[in-house]
């Protein structure tokens, strides 16, 4: 009982929509494992006691084996394992198939910090503020070594690989502060590379966003890079492509390639085309684009990707921030940063999901020890230290 009453937790919080599913599989797996281990242990213990040696030189009657039994204990475990496989696969698809209506937050890992940028342009380091009840997709890459972003209470995790984009999504179901870890060993201060995810009520999130007025949305920033790097001189965003393919409306579509293949335009392809333009040439065009390897940082790349995505309204992921951003800043000319901080919260407020979300802790968290202090709206502001489990945990730096 000591363990249950102490600040020790034995189970992580169920704070996202998939937590429950993962836990169900987990308990199923433990259940089967316990039954099988106990079966073997009890049977073995019974034999060991019942058939203990009674005379030093006794030789028991020998038994060769039984085809029937062998088949039985090969096939039955295999069938049980197929359920593990199927259930795990289903869950995996849920985790890694990205929802269409998610809010996209870009993540860049770096020894030893996490940098986040919200669609409205706010940046954070090692803290991530997200609204409750909103699907959130993290598009992630790294500036140096491999990291992995893990939020145990949401049961999500993915490696962050240099030169690639990976993504995870979640929808938080409970306000509070949750640990955010780097789980792929990344060097000296690996254990210091982490922080907290702060899940807030919708209105608090908006208030938090509006407290940060000079933010530039990644789309606008991307457009800035698009102009300053000279991309615009060739890939004129209006669609009048001459030597270069137009970028309007291509995202999510299939593009025919010069070598006869096809490519689906996604984040990875845009990235590759900026850094290694000769890799996949669109049919009908020459390989005249220079590489931008070394000239753009990972964050700038993510902003360029956001901008190019915003040129394809049909394919863009229907997140609230994308459309207003583009409308307010027609793609001619440099964006006005001042408009951004205010427009987007407005658009958020117009979202039907926006008002207070009732599902927070009503049906959940029965067995959790942290629900009480984390769930009350007042305590979920950043830096509000609440229970023992929520204290900032590192000493160094």
């Amino acid at each position, binding site marked *: 009982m000591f363990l249950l009453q102490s600040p020790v937790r034995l189970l992580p919080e169920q704070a996202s929509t998939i937590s429950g599913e993962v836990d169900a599989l987990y308990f199923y797996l433990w259940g089967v494992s316990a039954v099988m281990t106990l079966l073997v242990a009890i049977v073995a213990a019974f034999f060991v006691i019942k058939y203990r040696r009674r005379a030093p030189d006794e030789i028991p009657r020998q038994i060769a084996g039984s085809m029937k039994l062998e088949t039985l204990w090969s096939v039955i475990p295999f069938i049980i394992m197929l359920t593990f496989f199927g259930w795990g696969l289903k869950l995996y698809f849920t985790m890694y198939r990205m929802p269409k209506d998610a809010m996209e937050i870009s993540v860049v890992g770096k020894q030893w910090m996490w940098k986040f940028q919200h669609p409205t342009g706010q940046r954070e380091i090692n803290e991530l503020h997200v609204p409750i009840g909103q699907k959130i997709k993290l598009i992630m890459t790294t500036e140096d070594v491999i990291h992995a972003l893990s939020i145990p209470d949401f049961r999500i995790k993915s490696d962050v690989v240099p030169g690639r984009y990976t993504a995870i999504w979640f929808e938080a179901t409970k306000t509070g502060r949750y640990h955010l870890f780097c789980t792929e060993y990344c060097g000296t201060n690996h254990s210091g590379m982490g922080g907290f995810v702060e899940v807030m009520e919708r209105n608090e999130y908006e208030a938090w966003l509006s407290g940060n007025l000079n933010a530039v949305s990644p789309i606008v920033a991307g457009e800035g890079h698009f102009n300053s790097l000279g991309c615009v001189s060739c890939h004129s965003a209006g669609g009048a492509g001459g030597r270069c393919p137009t970028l309007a409306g291509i995202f999510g579509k299939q593009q025919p390639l010069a070598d006869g293949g096809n490519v689906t335009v996604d984040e990875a392809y845009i990235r590759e085309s900026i850094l*290694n333009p*000769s890799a996949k040439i669109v049919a009908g065009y020459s*390989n005249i684009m220079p590489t931008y390897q070394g000239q753009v940082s990972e964050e700038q790349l993510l902003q360029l990707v956001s901008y190019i995505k915003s040129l394809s309204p049909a394919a863009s992921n229907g997140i609230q921030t994308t459309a207003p951003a583009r409308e307010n800043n027609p793609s001619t000319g440099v964006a006005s940063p001042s408009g951004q901080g205010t427009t987007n919260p407005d658009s958020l407020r117009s979202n039907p999901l926006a008002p207070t979300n009732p599902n927070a802790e009503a049906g959940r968290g029965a067995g959790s020890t942290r629900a009480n202090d984390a769930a009350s709206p007042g305590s979920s502001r950043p830096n509000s230290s609440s229970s023992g489990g929520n204290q900032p945990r590192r000493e160094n730096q």
Partner: protein
Amino acid sequence: MATQTLNHADAHHDAAHDEEHHPGLAHHFDNMEQQRDSGTLGMWVFLVTEIMFFGGMFLAYMLFRASNPNEFAAGSYQLDVLLGGINTAVLIGSSLTMALAVFFAQTGNKSLLVLFLLATILLGFVFLGIKAVEYGTKFSHGTIPGRNFKVEHKKMEEYEEHHHGDAAANVDPARLQMFFVIYFMLTGVHALHMIIGIGVMSVLVFFALRNRYSPEYHSHIELAGLYWHFVDIVWIFLFPLLYLIGRH
């Protein structure tokens, strides 16, 4: 008492018994055939590990070529197909001399055995010499992977001219380096195997001159032959994969 003891010699064939006194028979083997079979199997098993060893690099080759086809073609174009071709012929020739050396070991012709072993060594050195010339050219142009990697512009222009009008044939110089990384790793490790082979064969020449081998006992020669042919096979794959892509 249910105990079985057997006279040692009874356990074996008479032939085996005769062979027991062969000076080449190690104490823990019963007869020459068992010893030779063990050696052959051991060498084949070793060659399987070599397949896997080179396999890792071939896997890297496949994946990188798939992701950088133009760069690999352009890199291949910068290698000297004539020298590569000559080297292929030299190595196949050395395989022939090696096979003949085994033949003369089997038939007990000592002087021809030594002659063909020496011929194999010589061809090995010719191969390495030509390889050194190729490496030297690359060094002089700075086409060495690493921080100071330089593109050989003359060859690049030639290549682009060769493919003029073909949009997909343009090359990212930074990724051209990847071809040369693979080229140097594969040919370098291959050359290292050649050097080891030459060393082994030199020892065999020494032993052969001291009359150690006979038609009954020559498995060293056979095993060295297996190894040498394996090195030849690796090159048979390296030549088209490194020298002959992007020629057309």
